């Protein structure tokens, strides 16, 4: 009896060992592509599943978690530099793609599907290519008269204590602040941030929360991602979405496209390129536009849900994302001290 138990235990251990050490089963024969994804899994996974179905290439993905957005994929990509495991990185904003380029982790690829995407949303050397974008928009409580139409509303006395913004140390908010610094210069940028504080702007943990605050009527407006706004509009919340700074002399609305990156030294470069082509297709952009993430297609002529304006009708803030990436690192100490950290 006892011996039987020992034998069983040993068998289990051996079986577990084989199981654990067996390379992921798909590696051996079938075609595979490994992709690290920073776009929310809820939205990205269906696209990747479709890709599997249509091409027969198995997709093995690593997703980022919301709690630690980007500690996952980006850090792994950097740590794995000398022996890359990933073929493709699906970034949810181009700044990270720029960081990878600067760190020598990516390799150029000019996808044939990218030729209609406006040059502003592509790296000129081909290290990353943008697609399906979020716009940085204002959500405004319904019923507010004379809606704010510029991010400068944050520093106008009229809105004192009435506005909220997500923590500028993280996410797209930090990118936008960096973008503003590149447009305005450091002095005006800093002045804006100081004025923001003086105007008693509330700080939330993330854009979704900002949008919830406005939807709940606690604040009048907030700068958030367009998907946060569309999402809540679709849920029937009492908010409206405003593309800021659209006037003739104004700086325009900051656009945050997704980006595809081909990893240098990828093990499945062929499949990787195929996946990138797929992600950059009009079909994918359309799916992402109609999904709950409501992302704005960058290709002309893609069908749109009613809440979205086509990219051609939005005045985009013209920025060089490489410059923004550099600025972002530069202003971190300032932002930290600004946050009181």
């Amino acid at each position: 009896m006892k011996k039987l138990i020992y034998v069983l235990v040993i068998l289990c251990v051996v079986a577990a060992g084989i199981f654990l050490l067996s390379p992921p089963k798909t590696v051996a024969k079938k075609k595979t592509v490994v992709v690290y994804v920073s776009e929310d899994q809820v939205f990205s996974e269906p696209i990747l599943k479709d890709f599997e179905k249509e091409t027969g290439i198995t997709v093995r993905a690593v997703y980022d978690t919301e709690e630690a957005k980007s500690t996952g994929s980006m850090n792994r990509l950097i740590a794995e530099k000398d022996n890359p495991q990933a073929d493709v990185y699906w970034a949810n904003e181009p700044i990270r793609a720029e960081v990878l380029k600067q760190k020598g982790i990516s390799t150029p690829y000019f996808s044939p599907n990218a030729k209609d995407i406006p040059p502003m949303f592509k790296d000129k050397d081909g290290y990353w290519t943008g697609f399906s974008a979020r716009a940085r928009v204002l959500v405004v409580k319904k019923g507010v008269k004379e809606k704010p139409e510029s991010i400068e509303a944050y520093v106008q006395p009229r809105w004192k204590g009435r506005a909220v913004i997500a923590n500028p140390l993280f996410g797209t908010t930090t990118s936008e602040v960096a973008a503003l610094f590149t447009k305005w210069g450091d002095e005006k940028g800093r002045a804006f941030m100081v004025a923001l504080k003086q105007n008693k702007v509330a700080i939330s943990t993330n854009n979704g929360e900002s949008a919830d605050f406005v939807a709940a009527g606690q604040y009048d407006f907030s700068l958030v991602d367009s998907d946060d706004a569309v999402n809540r509009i679709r849920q029937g919340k009492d908010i409206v979405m405003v593309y800021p700074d659209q006037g003739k002399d104004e700086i325009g609305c900051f656009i945050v496209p997704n980006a595809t990156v081909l990893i240098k030294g990828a093990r499945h470069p062929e499949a990787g390129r195929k996946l990138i082509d797929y992600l950059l297709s009009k079909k994918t952009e359309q799916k992402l536009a109609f999904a709950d993430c409501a992302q704005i297609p960058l290709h002309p002529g893609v069908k749109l849900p009613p809440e979205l304006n086509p990219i051609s009708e939005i005045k985009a803030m013209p920025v060089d994302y490489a410059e923004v990436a550099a600025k972002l690192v530069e202003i971190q100490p300032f932002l930290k001290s600004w946050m009181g950290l």
Partner: protein
Amino acid sequence: MQKRVFLAIIIVLLLLVGLLPVFSMLVNSLGLDSHFSFVAYEGVLTSRHQWVLMGHSMALSSIVTVFAVAVGVPLGILFGKTDFPFRSFFMFLFAIPLLIPPYITAVSWFDLLGREGLLAPFMGPQLTAAAGRFLFGLPGSALVLFSTFLSIPMILTMVFLKAVNPRLEEAGLLASGWRGVLKGITIPLILPGILLSAILVFLLSFGEFGVPNFLRYDVFPVESFTQFSAFYNFKAATAAAVPLAALTLAILAGEVWFLRKKGSQLRPSPDAATAFPIPLGKYRRLMFSSATVLGLVLVVLPFSVLVIQSAGIKNYVEAFNRAGDSIVRSILYAASGAVLLTFIGFFTGYLIQTKAVKFWRTIDFITIFLFALPGTVIGIGLVSLWNRPWANLIYGTSAIIILGYLARYTALTSRICATRLSQIPPSMEEAAQVAGAGWFRRMILIVAPLARRSIFAAFIVGYIFSLRDTGITMLVYPAGHDTLPVRIFTLMANGSSRLIAALCIIMIAITIVPAAILWAISRPVAGKEMT
């Protein structure tokens, strides 16, 4: 000879799996690969802000520890030593929050008390706002972590109570009532266990980043975290984790100092199992209702949110569709992790307890230190160390996850086993030695069976902590091979709350069911052992 060689292998394994990745990060952070420099450290260690955060972390961890011990120990005594009704049920109830990542508990509380929470319509706007103020900040973070870690002192108290010789208590009973005996005899006897639980709770709350981040209370690990997530600056991130080593050292030194004054008196008598439970008498009803209220508030209330949100077959079907494979993997990884954790923990526990090597204290320190480190540091260390073409058998497979578990959680199984081993008289092994048995035979046939219960306990704890791990897993899992808690996290970003709730319930189930079965199996065996 066998003993030396084998223990040396265990030590080397521990160093290789746990310390080496961290060490490589450390070397890297000092810039040794190019030229030696403290640049990364200057920035982190000289900023005043760091010390403010350190203060926050200390405050949070201390509050959580004090409350968890102050409530957990009495609960442990109540469930382990008295005629309290439905003891096992209550024990499981209070253990539930420990089984899932505390971040989810925080989200549940938010779903309950938040602006659009379940209770908001009943509370009115003013109360809701007050609840929000409470939840966000130090009190909320402390509440969530307190409810999560409450069961640690509770369970450890119960375990240690089992080892108290009832003769000692009976002797005391002649002189005073139970109240006096508990205060004067029982509690001092189980002090090492209480102290251990306090250390664990303190370190676990200290390292917890998700909850304070979500509830907006800035704590120390945030620095390491932002260095990773915003700057991808591994050097600074490691530097930011270094003060934790000092903290660990201070805590362990405190423990040694504290316990030195008290020799351990825990030698279970052969008839320990026959000890009488304390009759609660007229207090029975009062105690019962207090525990019920506590259970309702701490566990039932927040988790009913999950139950309500996940209600309906449809949600579970979707959960299985979207995460079925992760569920299976989670169970397998956690079980394998638990086997290895128990194995290594048993031997490190043995060598710490018997002081088999001169530097046994160092081994203990290393395991505790790894336990206290942010998972991200170990995770990145593992990646940079193991991600090499020749090591693909490790890094390219799930083995790397198991290594992560071993690196992080050996302290738990090691301490559990060491505690039990300290209760086994050395003469047991010596008798076998005189009878001519070599070390392996002694370990397998004498020591391990005597420590059987702690081996089961170590396995269960190893299983639970491996299963709920996210910090390391999410950094090292091979593409396409995530675990359930990681999947929950990734789906949390804009995923439907119903789906998340259903996944959380599944998570609780796959933790509780195997653990409960094992516990049930281990009981009669252990009972016989002592009668």
